[in-house]
């Protein structure tokens, strides 16, 4: 098959070389747009492009067909240079119906390529999208290179010899669209053909039909006169090595498994399904042969409590959720902090408050994970900055948690959870081990469950060890012995000790470094998933000659020890956040720096353009 495909993939039409392309695929949530996007991403990654993706889908599994609410989109930027965002403006939009067209057209650049499935622009389709007239007939269409493709008819034609039902045949049209897009950008069809063969191995007719639809889409691109040239994007010059495509949630799962192995620990993962964190549960459930325990608990509270129980037993306890679930876990997180047991709590943030925007991204849980518990209850907080970075974040969190005997919170978000980028595959054998020791009972007479080491960590004595029987609980404890204590001096001492223990994390983390000049007009401070957009925007501003540097914070509690010093080297500090100014509030309170916020809560990531504009404006007044 591969030789056939290779010869088929030769295009006789002219080819244009471009340095990068942003494509958005938009259709009904049942149209398979996420599948199409994933295939385009994987194929582009295999061709050596740098990639960044942004899936954007409704919370409803199947919102009413053809409506604007039901539009599901997938955006990917692939380039021959490094990219850190899925792209601001779209070079090519593939719209499968009128609703997809009108809800996405604003992001298509002037002169951009607009491919529509014209079979889905009948009166009834327009009505579903709340349109009186066809947008294809409007004068605004002259701004774009409109290509009308009768995808339904062409797909039916391509698969007719297989005798499928109309419904079955119709479902193949996303592969037709895929074939066309693959032709347009000279992507190999081989990986997708492999995928089809694998995925539909139990239904040979459907398998065959999808293959035919894919090839027909390619052939259509090659023969239609409406598409003149196709485009090519050369491989990017990434750091040499072996790469794979990585999504944020997958990277968290793999990072947790790696941390468990590096520390010689059994991984126990207690979780309750919630968007956008559930994929971590799915991913870890696949790896029972790695000794991974996954427990789908009856609720969020049971999920975190089961992880606490596992941690008491000596396992690596982990729980994950999103904002609403983290709210439910709050009391138990306080318990884990009080028990001084190591564990990891992951918050894959989504739009809030309450149920909010389940499938959209936001960074508004920072203050929740820092302060959303009763009493003085500080916890270390680390935020991942990109899909692949989630892997390292998980490992670092366990390094800190196990060293200091306390829960550590990881913040991710919907944008990096579902986004993808190339990941330079590490060699596990070369990674630094995580040393964990349990007292063995040989010095039982001197054992005290809350005796502390130089970092204020207590010993992790586990059940089954003779002579070390001890009780832990949520009631305040006397230091050293761990016995219940209501003594006022002891309580103050313990509150300060737990606070200092978190502060000690600063000894384990690198100092803050900036990208750009070490002093100047403006420092842009970012955290979490806005890294790519902020970094790209600062680079562009630097190229414009502005005196601006970028500082990305990975550690939100404690902050790197030199942060206060760094902040004061710039006349102005700008903190863009996908919330109403949560990091800004912390920075202002802690360092008395008059930081300026740029805040957006639309359920969408920052565009580079808007950040560059903000940076320019602030620099003007610096």
């Amino acid at each position, binding site marked *: 098959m591969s030789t056939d495909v290779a010869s088929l993939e030769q295009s006789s039409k002219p080819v244009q070389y471009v340095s990068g392309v942003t494509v958005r695929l938009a259709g009904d949530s049942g149209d398979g747009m996420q599948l199409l996007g994933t295939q385009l991403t994987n194929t582009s990654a295999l061709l050596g492009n740098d990639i960044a993706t942004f899936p954007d889908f409704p919370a409803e599994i199947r919102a009413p067909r053809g409506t604007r609410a039901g539009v599901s989109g997938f955006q990917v930027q692939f380039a021959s240079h490094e990219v850190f965002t899925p792209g601001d403006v779209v070079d090519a939009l593939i719209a499968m119906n009128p609703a997809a067209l009108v809800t996405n057209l604003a992001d298509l650049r002037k002169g951009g390529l607009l491919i529509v499935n014209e079979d889905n622009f009948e009166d009834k389709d327009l009505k579903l999208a709340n349109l009186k007239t066809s947008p294809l007939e409007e004068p605004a269409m002259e701004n774009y290179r409109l290509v009308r493709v009768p995808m339904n008819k062409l797909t039916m034609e391509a698969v007719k010899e297989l005798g499928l039902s109309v419904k079955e045949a119709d479902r193949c049209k996303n592969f037709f669209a895929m074939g066309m897009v693959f032709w347009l950008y000279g992507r190999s069809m081989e990986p997708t053909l492999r995928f089809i063969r694998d995925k539909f191995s139990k239904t040979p007719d459907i398998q065959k039909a999808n293959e035919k639809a894919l090839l027909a889409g390619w052939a259509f691109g090659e023969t239609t006169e409406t598409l003149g040239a196709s485009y090519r994007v050369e491989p990017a010059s990434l750091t040499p090595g072996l790469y*794979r495509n990585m999504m944020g949630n997958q990277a968290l799962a793999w990072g947790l498994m790696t941390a468990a192995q590096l520390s010689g620990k059994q991984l126990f993962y207690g979780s309750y399904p919630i968007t956008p964190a559930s994929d971590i549960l799915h991913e870890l459930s696949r790896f029972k042969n790695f000794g991974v325990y996954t*427990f789908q608990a009856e609720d969020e509270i049971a999920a975190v409590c089961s992880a606490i129980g596992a941690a008491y*037993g000596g396992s690596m306890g982990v729980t994950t959720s999103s904002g609403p679930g983290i709210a439910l876990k709050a*009391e138990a997180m306080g318990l884990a902090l009080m028990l001084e047991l190591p564990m990891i709590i992951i918050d894959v943030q989504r739009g809030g408050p309450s149920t909010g925007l389940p499938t959209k991204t936001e960074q508004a849980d920072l203050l929740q994970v820092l302060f959303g518990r009763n009493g003085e209850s500080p916890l270390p907080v680390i935020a991942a900055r990109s899909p692949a970075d989630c892997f390292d974040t998980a490992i670092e969190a366990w390094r800190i948690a196990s060293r200091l005997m306390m829960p550590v919170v990881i913040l991710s978000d919907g944008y990096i959870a579902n986004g993808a980028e190339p990941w330079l595959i590490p060699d596990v054998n070369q990674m630094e081990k995580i040393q964990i020791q349990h007292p063995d009972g040989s010095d039982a007479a001197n054992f005290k469950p809350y005796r502390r080491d130089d970092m204020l960590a207590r010993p992790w004595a586990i059940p089954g060890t003779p002579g070390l029987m001890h009780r832990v*609980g949520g009631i305040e404890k006397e230091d050293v012995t761990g016995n219940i204590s209501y003594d006022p001096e002891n309580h103050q001492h313990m509150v300060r000790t737990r606070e200092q223990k978190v502060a000690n994390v600063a000894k384990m983390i690198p100092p803050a470094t900036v990208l750009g000049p070490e002093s100047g007009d403006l420092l842009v401070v970012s955290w979490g998933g806005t890294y790519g957009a902020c970094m790209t925007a600062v680079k562009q501003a630097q190229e414009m000659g502005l005196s601006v540097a970028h500082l990305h914070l990975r550690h939100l509690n404690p902050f790197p020890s030199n942060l206060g010093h760094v902040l004061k080297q710039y006349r102005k500090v700008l903190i863009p956040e996908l919330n109403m100014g949560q990091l800004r509030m912390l920075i202002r309170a802690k360092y008395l720096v008059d930081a300026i916020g740029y805040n957006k809560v639309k359920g969408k990531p920052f565009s580079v353009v808007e950040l560059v504009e903000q940076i320019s404006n602030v620099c003007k007044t610096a």
Partner: protein
Amino acid sequence: MSTVNLPVLKAADFASDQDVRWCPGCGDYSILAQMKKVLPELGIPPEQMVFVSGIGCSSRFPYYMNTYGVHSIHGRAPAVATGLKVTRPDLKVWVITGDGDALSIGGNHFVHLLRRNVNLNIILFNNRIYGLTKGQYSPTSPEGQVTKSTPMGAIDHPLNPMLLALGAEATFVARSIDAHVKHLAATLKRAAEHKGTAFVEVYQNCNVFNDGAWNYAADRATRDDNVIELEHGKPLIFGKERDKGIRLVGTKIEVVKLGNGISESDLLVHDEQGDLIHSFLLARMRRAEFPEPIGVFRDIQSPTFDDQMNDQIKLAKQKRGPGDLNQLFRSGDTWQVA
């Protein structure tokens, strides 16, 4: 776990060095004493045992045991214990809870623990009152009970813990009474020997906020007429003179007096492995219409959650080989950048 060559343990070996801080006269003392009496008989060293509790008077229990222990948060002990037991199947795990802890704030975890059949024991100290918060009514308080929060009488219909446990198809369900120490010790031992979740409700007296709530069942003077001791394979007989029994008529049960043509052979015979309906009938026997059964209502074998989880891991390792991260990272589509 091996029991060979172990020193013989005594009740005192299971006592911690902490002062017990329950009110003098509390029924909890009796349960603590019987637990300490039973544990040495199990042949399991104290370091292999973990007591997990929630919040409430009963939940202070772990502090008084010289074993491992977690005093967790309100209602959540079953979840903590589940995470512990599945990852450490070698440990003997006990959950200590109360009527508010298990049936109100922790009701969800309670039923899920039972339906999963995690191999651990859960002892519910039922005193029909909130003691630690000083006397509000609980989910097992009878209708009409006047408490600090129900000055005109409770209007909620009380939960029957046994019905709830049976509804979750618990594999071991038993009941005992704090003052009936021999029965209590025997019941705790039966629970400890059961493989799967063993649930024991203990009628426990709160002498400060709900004194005498169980007198009818606990007092020697009235006990025999108000309580029926279940024995597997034996007919249900009770009364001071052992002259009364329980007869099944159609789908209903009734109290009958022996004699006058009614003999033991007419009575319902207890069967711990009987159909769930049998256990439900027993659980529905409430005062004053019926004597209340104590002992083991149901004891059946069923695969445990922890065994099955560990078996899946073993099977996955056998089938696919132990996981190799480097191999996983390099599986599927990868590409080389030179």
